């Protein structure tokens, strides 16, 4: 099993690494880069917890090999905001109780980010549809949808 050299830009920082071809992008992010904000739930593409942005598009990192990300730009939850400087989505999830255990939250946030970039005035129906590939076992989704609605409002306000 020959390792493959890859170069991946994650949250603006370039990383060069040797990886086994079977290394999943999710394990590469968590174990090789030690960015443990990306969570692994089902590890077969059902739960959405491991969702990251690859070249600006939501991607299940557990259904992608790290070698497939060679040359790609990746954004993980760590690239969204910080405790001192939260992204409006993070602030809204905090404010509106959009999380309980927090396991699904990174995937929810990255999914919501793609939605609001494309559709800044997404309605409840569109938000629910966008979240349909992300499972939450705590909240019943109500507060997640409300958080994204609130964030959308904040983000629209910031643009004008």
């Amino acid at each position, binding site marked *: 099993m020959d390792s493959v050299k890859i170069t991946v830009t994650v949250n603006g920082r370039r990383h060069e690494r040797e990886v086994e071809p079977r290394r999943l992008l999710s394990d590469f992010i968590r174990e090789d880069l030690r960015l443990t904000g990306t969570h692994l739930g089902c590890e077969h593409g059902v739960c959405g917890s491991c969702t990251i942005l690859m070249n600006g598009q939501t991607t299940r990192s557990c259904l*992608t090999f790290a070698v497939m990300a060679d040359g790609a730009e990746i954004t993980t939850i760590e690239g969204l905001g910080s405790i001192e400087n939260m992204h409006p989505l993070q602030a809204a999830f905090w404010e509106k109780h959009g999380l309980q255990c927090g396991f699904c939250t990174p995937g929810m946030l990255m999914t919501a980010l793609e939605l609001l970039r494309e559709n800044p005035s997404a309605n409840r129906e569109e938000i629910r549809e966008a979240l349909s590939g992300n499972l939450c076992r705590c909240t019943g989704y109500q507060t997640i949808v409300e958080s994204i609605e609130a964030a959308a409002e904040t983000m629209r306000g910031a643009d004008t």
Partner: protein
Amino acid sequence: MKPAPFDYVRAENVGEALSALAANAEAQVLAGGQSLIAMMNLRLAKPGCLIDINRLSDLDYIRAEGDELALGALTRHTAAATSPVVAEFCPLMTAAYGFIAHRAVRNRGTVGGNLCHADPSSENPAVAIASGATLVLNSVDGERRVAAEDFFLGLFETATGQNELLTEIRIPKAPANQGWSFQETSTRKGDFALVGIAATLDCPDGACTDARIVAVGVGERAVRLDAAETAITGAAIDDASLAAAAQAARDSVDPPSDFHADSEFRRDLVFSLTKRALSEAYGRCRKEG
């Protein structure tokens, strides 16, 4: 690390992919990986060698060419789902995308990979068969074309040879006056279909002159419902003929029972969804006179 080890070949062009396929009897093609990698994570699939075709950008296109719509095999679902060209010339496919997976999966998954995976509950095989698509297969020995109807052989099994790569999907442009519908029931939004029905209908003067009805989720592969097509063809479209066609559809399938739905429930779905699909397709037919 979940998947079993494999040799990895990254093809930079179609020629390299075909040579690699010819050189390695254990090779499988890695496109978007949205089904294959899930199966590898569960060790349901342990390919000895993967040929990564994600760099073959010349297989990523959507074009209207003469009287056909041509999709490169590496076209991502998101591109196909949102394409105005697809919406114009194969509105059935656009309709089916209302049921296909979730956004993150559609961003990576490819039209060609989806067809080659040949999941019996997957929607696009039904779209391909209903719209009379032709699949273009390439190998080092040359090119071969297979009608979608002859492509799906069984559970996860297609007519693609070990050394062949699906490069293009060619779909005759839907006639402007043709009606279409895709109907599906699944446990949750974006899940695989319990049953899905794709239908196209031509009714130039109120009576049906041609119908294609394809079901997924009722067996080992997508199947044309010949009995239902025969029942509706030649008939004036009304409640009685729709019900007769739906009943013929129901009687012609013998779906499996599984954890999600038993055979009888799936039969009932075939009846209801066929009726709904034909009714919606009829509403979309442009009638003359």
